């Protein structure tokens, strides 16, 4: 069978880096082809080249064995290439149909013929088993459903080659499962799929072949069936990777954080956290497993003071801190590695030195009587750069915006750990980071535990919870449904609890 897409010897340079260096990708008709690589390996660049958003400096692109020049995304669309972006491009207050036809509205004279479009969408939806309601508003449907709308958008435009950019990052395990089925269905209907991901499990589950990129270079293309997971990981990272985290047995001591009957509302004034009880002890890592949107964000914001608490009690080292201000809570010994490092964790246009004193700038030695001591602020940053191996171009005066994601995260961790809080809250601490940075951050969390700090880890990645935490609690619809020693549980059991079943068997450790 021939190739639907051939990208031969593609080279794409950006100022200072070569994003794609002699990369070749060949996708067969009717296959699911995975594109595997760490962050910054050049996957997105390669797909942007295919989608016409960048022009390569060298190399040839062939679609259906004809050489083509893809100068912009419209050309790609005309060639039957469609892309499901990681961040959906949908209008919330429009219906599914309105979103799909946006830009190519069918008309009857000057009158918009929405029902004709809706009918076609319904047919497509049935054909591929997507079960999407054409008249539903985007804001009313789940994230997984929204993703299907994106898929329908491509099918409606007669795309034959579908690119999925990290499609599972926003999905629940169940939704991931369904997506895999949809992809298989698309394949049997004759579509070709490129799946961009760094998750090996998904590749194993659904892909036929896999092309591996590392640091902008083409490494190899392998048959997925014949290649074990650890081999693919080795190809991706360039060295043997240990998926297990080395750590000794936890020696938990007194309770540091105690939460009793906590109730918190979300932005829409709906209950996000409901009668939640939790305790974290010194010298242990407590992991909270759960699907995104089950109250994790609101829980963390309530503990740290960013969100109003309806009722309940939060005690830190036996002291009631429920309604203290954010600053008072920080001062009482809470360190917070926030979920969204760009939104909450850093002032991107401040330099590293200024960001390192974000919560302590008003204290000695960083300021005296309201005047900043620039020298002490910079010296502090230089010390942390050394200690935590933060890579930055110009040391303490580097604008944080110019640093890589991994180093930005290291900077936050350096700042939070250095304040030596008795409770360290790490919310999604490794999101979007590569394997090296993940290993580092995990070992830092364990180090803090071994120093006798209480660590609260919130993650949507079950592997991370299972590897790092000593005790694990599952959060479902704003309540901790079960708590157990990590050693006594497994992925299956947690997965079921996360999905809301087996609630009856809840027990408290």
């Amino acid at each position, binding site marked *: 069978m021939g190739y639907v897409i051939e990208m031969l010897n593609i080279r794409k340079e950006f*100022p*200072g880096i070569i994003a794609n260096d002699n990369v070749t990708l060949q996708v067969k008709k009717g296959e699911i082809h995975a594109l595997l690589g760490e962050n910054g390996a050049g996957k997105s660049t390669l797909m942007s080249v295919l989608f016409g958003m960048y022009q390569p400096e060298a190399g040839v692109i062939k679609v259906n064995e004809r050489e083509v020049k893809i100068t912009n995304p419209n050309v790609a669309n005309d060639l039957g290439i469609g892309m499901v972006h990681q961040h959906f491009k949908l209008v919330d207050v429009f219906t599914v149909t309105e979103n799909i036809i946006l830009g190519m509205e069918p008309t009857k004279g000057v009158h918009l013929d929405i029902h004709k479009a809706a009918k076609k969408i319904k047919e497509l939806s049935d054909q591929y088993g997507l079960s999407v309601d054409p008249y539903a508003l985007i804001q009313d449907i789940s994230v997984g459903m929204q993703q299907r709308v994106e898929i329908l958008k491509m099918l409606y435009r007669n795309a034959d080659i579908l690119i999925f950019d990290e499609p599972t990052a926003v999905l629940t395990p169940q939704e991931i499962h369904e997506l895999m089925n949809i992809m298989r269905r698309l394949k049997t209907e004759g579509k070709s799929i490129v799946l961009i991901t760094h998750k090996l499990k998904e590749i194993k589950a659904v892909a036929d072949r896999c092309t591996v990129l590392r640091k902008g270079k083409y490494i190899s293309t392998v048959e997925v069936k014949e290649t074990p997971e650890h081999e693919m990981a080795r190809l991706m990272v360039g060295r043997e990777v240990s998926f297990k985290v080395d750590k000794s047995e936890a020696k938990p001591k007194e309770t540091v954080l105690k939460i009793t009957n906590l109730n918190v509302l979300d932005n829409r004034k709906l209950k996000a956290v409901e009668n939640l009880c939790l305790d974290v002890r010194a010298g242990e890592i407590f992991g909270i497993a759960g699907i995104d949107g089950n109250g994790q964000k609101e829980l963390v914001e309530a503990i*740290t*003071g*960013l969100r109003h608490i309806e009722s309940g009690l939060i005690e830190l080292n036996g002291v009631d801190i429920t309604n203290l*201000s*954010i*600053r*008072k809570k*920080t001062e009482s010994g809470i360190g*917070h590695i*926030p979920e969204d490092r760009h*939104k*909450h*964790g*850093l*002032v*991107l*246009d*401040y330099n590293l030195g*200024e960001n390192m004193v*974000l*919560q302590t*700038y*008003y204290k000695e030695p960083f*300021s005296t009587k*309201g*005047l*900043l001591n620039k020298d002490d602020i910079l010296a502090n940053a230089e010390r942390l750069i050394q200690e935590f191996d933060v890579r930055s171009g110009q040391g303490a005066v580097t604008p944080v*915006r*110019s640093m890589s994601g991994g180093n930005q995260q290291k900077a936050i961790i350096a700042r939070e750990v250095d304040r030596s809080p008795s409770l360290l809250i790490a919310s999604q601490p490794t999101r979007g980071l590569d394997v090296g940075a993940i290993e580092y951050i995990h070992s830092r969390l364990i180090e803090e535990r071994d120093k006798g700090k209480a660590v609260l880890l919130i993650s949507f990645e079950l592997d991370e919870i299972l590897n790092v935490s000593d005790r694990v609690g599952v959060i479902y619809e704003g309540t901790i449904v079960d708590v157990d020693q990590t050693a006594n549980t497994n992925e299956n059991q947690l997965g079921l609890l996360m999905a809301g079943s087996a609630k009856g068997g809840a027990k408290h450790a």
Partner: protein
Amino acid sequence: MHKIKTFLSVESNQNKIIPFLSVFLGFLIGAIVMIVSGFNPLEAYARLFEGAGLFGNVRRFGETLVLATSLSLTGLAVAFGMRTGLFNIGASGQLLMGGFCAVFIGITLDLPKIIHLPLAVSAAMLAGALWGMIPGLLKARFNVHEVVSSIMMNWIAVWSVYYFVPEFIKGKYDTESATIRNSASLRVDWLTDLFKGSSINLGIFIAIIAAIVVWWILEKTTFGFELKAVGLNKDAAKYAGIHVNRNIVLSMMISGALAGLAGATFYLGFTNNVKIGELPSLGFDGIAVALLGVNTPLGVVLSSLLFGVMNAGKGFMQAATRVPNELVQIIMAVIIFFAAATQLIRLIIKRILRVKNVPIQVTEPVIEEINGGEK
């Protein structure tokens, strides 16, 4: 050449030269317009600068400084707001209220100068601060966008003055107030003599001190650290335990106080009375001044001087060369256009010098505010 290239490849350096490049391009395009219309640009520019007193006429130079004084203060008001994430489009109203209060005190009270003048200036500052505080409070409490509320405040100021002036401090005509007492005037004999009878006044020292204080607050104090953090990333500021709402109110008050001071220099130093029914354009010009001065105190002072030169010299240019003084408006508009279109200039720098390493884009705050408002 290589050194220039490396210098220009850093974004912060580009930001420094963009205003100068904009000015150069403004004059260049102005020259082209003149050539096309059959004038001699070199002569016109020489007359323009001569009219502004740059070639040794101290009286004319004094007038240039007077124009720059009030502009630099409204520029500082706008720039201070910008740096802290607020678009204070209400500087005109704050200036008018400040000026009105100063003039009111300057007419109704009879005190020795050493008390009268500081009192009048303080009143202007306080009134400006209060007029700025209202949009600040509305934003902090009810998330009302400051652009909308401060425009409203401009008109409330105009009509309040419209009512109060004839009611309490009516002058010779119905449309203006009486003249302030000499004891409340910012003009002093030694300055007037030094500049050979120009209307230059103590306001210039107020402007210089204000610029230094603003720089000091923003760069040296923990208060400035908080204000800028709120301006750059409100969520991170909140995360860091900074009172975001309090800082919004304080920032609007300081911005308003600066505009109020501009009112003091304008009404106590230049016009000596208040006219009714008009909104002074100084507050809006302050937006352009702040933009060209990239929202830094030094930049604002320099760009207000440019504005002063252009406005002071245009009449002389027209008289001497018959180049219509509207041409100065064209030049100013072109300068502001390029100062606002930083991305365009960056592109030109890239193309001409083939500088490659241009880091991440920054969006121009003014443009962002006008187009998008609240994120």
